[in-house]
């Protein structure tokens, strides 16, 4: 019983960064922008989170730095893909390589080659008074860190903005029919810049979660494809915020089970490597089994203003 509750609580913890990433990816992709730099944004977020916390002694600074750096990468990405109208997959690949180099390089510039890994305090678990005492549910939902609680608020906010406000309508119409949006007076490129920058901000937080909220340190392999999983969840969740929520919970659970099985060591009946690969296998299985996709019509296609 305790084991099961532990796995569920951990599942929610591991879902948190994936949800920050995939929700912002949903917002960006609904405007027609695949943020393929998401892996790099996660990574620089993880690094920024670590550095800010380590140097200035507070997780808040770490998260702010992560947001800022995430937005810098997103801004470069938006400039190349929106203003210069270049290929989104290719641009993302270049940025991901660059960021991987930059993080490792500046880790060295700032800290040299330390003899033992540099550690920071992880975000504390904050049990919510009363609520956390509900059996099972309390332990799972209300004994998490601050970023998970903020996530609870972000889900409905993003849904509301995307479907109930004129800004959300502008975002969605930009992804479906940019010409019509343009005629209606919406600045297509402005909307796309905005959604990509938002992705940078959220992706930065997601990355910071891995260093500040989970590991308490930074390593070059800290993200290890999690950005891509958030990217995949956006597809699998059919470009809908609630789909993304379901997707992240499934992946969080897979990751939580994976961590648990690995902690058992050789006691597991399948090799550790299988559980390490589990979230990725799951992505493939879900990609294959998903039948109807509602892809935003102009996803990945730069907007060229006629006569412009």
């Amino acid at each position, binding site marked *: 019983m305790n084991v099961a509750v532990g796995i569920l609580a951990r599942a929610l913890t591991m879902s948190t960064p994936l949800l920050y990433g995939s929700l912002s990816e949903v917002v960006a992709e609904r405007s027609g922008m695949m943020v393929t730099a998401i892996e790099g944004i996660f990574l620089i977020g993880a690094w920024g989170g670590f550095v800010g916390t380590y140097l200035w002694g507070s997780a808040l600074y770490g998260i702010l730095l992560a947001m800022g750096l995430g937005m810098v990468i997103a801004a*470069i990405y938006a400039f*190349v893909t929106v203003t*210069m*109208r*270049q*290929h989104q*997959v*290719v*641009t993302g*690949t*270049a*940025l*991901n*390589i*660059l*960021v*991987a*180099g*930059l993080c*490792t*390089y*500046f880790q*060295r*510039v700032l800290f040299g080659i330390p003899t033992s890994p540099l550690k920071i305090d992880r975000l504390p678990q904050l049990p919510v008074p009363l609520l956390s005492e509900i059996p099972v549910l309390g332990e799972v939902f209300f004994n998490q860190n601050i970023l998970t609680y903020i996530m609870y608020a972000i889900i409905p906010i993003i849904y509301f903005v995307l479907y109930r406000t004129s800004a959300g309508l502008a975002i969605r119409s930009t992804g479906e029919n940019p010409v019509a949006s343009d005629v209606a007076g919406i600045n297509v490129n402005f909307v796309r810049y905005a959604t990509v920058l938002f992705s940078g901000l959220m992706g930065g937080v997601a990355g910071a979660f891995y260093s500040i909220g989970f590991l308490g340190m930074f390593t070059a392999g800290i993200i*290890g*494809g999690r950005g*891509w999983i958030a*990217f*995949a969840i956006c*597809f699998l969740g059919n470009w809908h915020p609630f789909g993304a929520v379901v997707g992240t919970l499934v992946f969080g659970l897979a990751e939580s089970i994976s961590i648990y099985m690995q902690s058992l060591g050789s006691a597991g009946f399948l*090799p550790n*490597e*299988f559980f*390490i*690969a589990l979230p*990725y*296998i799951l*992505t*493939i299985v879900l*990609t*294959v*089994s*998903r039948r109807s996709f509602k892809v935003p019509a102009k996803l990945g296609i730069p907007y060229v203003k006629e006569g412009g």
Partner: protein
Amino acid sequence: MGKRIGASTRDLIITNLVAIVAGLVLSGFLLLFLDINPIQVYSSAIKTLFTDRYMAAEVFLKATPFIFTALAFAFTYKANLFNIGAQGQFYLGSVAAVSVSLLLDGKIPTAILLVVVFAATLLAGGLMGAGIGFLKARYNANEFLTSMMSTYVALAFMNYLLRTVLKETKGEYPQTDALSEAAWIPRIVPGTRLHLGFVIAVITAILIWVFLYKTPLGFRIRAIGSNARAGELAGINSRRIFVIAFLISGALAGAAGFTEVNGVQRMLIQDFNPDLGSAGIGIAILANANPIGIIFASILFGAISVIGTMMGRMPGINVPPSIVSIIQGSVMLFVIAAYYVRAMIGIRRDKKRLKREEA
């Protein structure tokens, strides 16, 4: 018309050269953070490249697997498909190379063994690629996602084998036993590590060019790439093309496993060459997915990685190896930007010409 093509080729070369230099300069600035004089380390590294035969050969050695993974990306790219999983296909190729070599070395002559190993790597990478193509053709599964994720699965699979059946006899590290000399790819320049694999890679690139541009199947692949619907109306079975394109793409990436295992490492080590796949994408883009261009772009990336390695080894100067990714990434970004610059130059030139013609 002829003049127009001449001008655009000139644009291509000039803008890409500027992009490459810009990438090197930007990365050079970062060296200042470590109190390293970028001009000094760059010039001494480049001088070594042109004077030291061993180091010059290293450039082509590094370029060899790049040619294969870049061809892998370019091949599917021509069909407007994305194979982001070259890294995983390379890993499976490596596993096949080391397994077959360990199984057969000493039992059959080197020449035959190498052919068998090469075929095995093509098969291993090709099957993995074909699987992705099949999922795309049969279930309309997004190949970008499946190929991306398959790399992580292949990595886990390789690590599992290295920890269990393929683990060295000593049982100390997650790596295989060393291959015996009978399984080595012969070296072609004495006193260097450069091996026959480079020649094979160049020939492969030429063959792929011929295949894409001079054969009916190659034409069909490009037709699906430029306009899938029109291609289908013309009677091309796009689903078959998906499988074939991914099969060949995967086989090309798998071949990198042959050159790296039998030509360079002569064993399989955990975490080796982790950036081959992504570098391949960058190289393919730099070369505009042209197989012949890929040869030259690969040599350039080879030079970048050798320069990076040399800078890390200079006495008294400690340039971290991560500078290689920084140079690669920034060169790629500037090359992408160069596409935009060329488009702008082309538009301006057309406008001028129109004005002239009007006048």
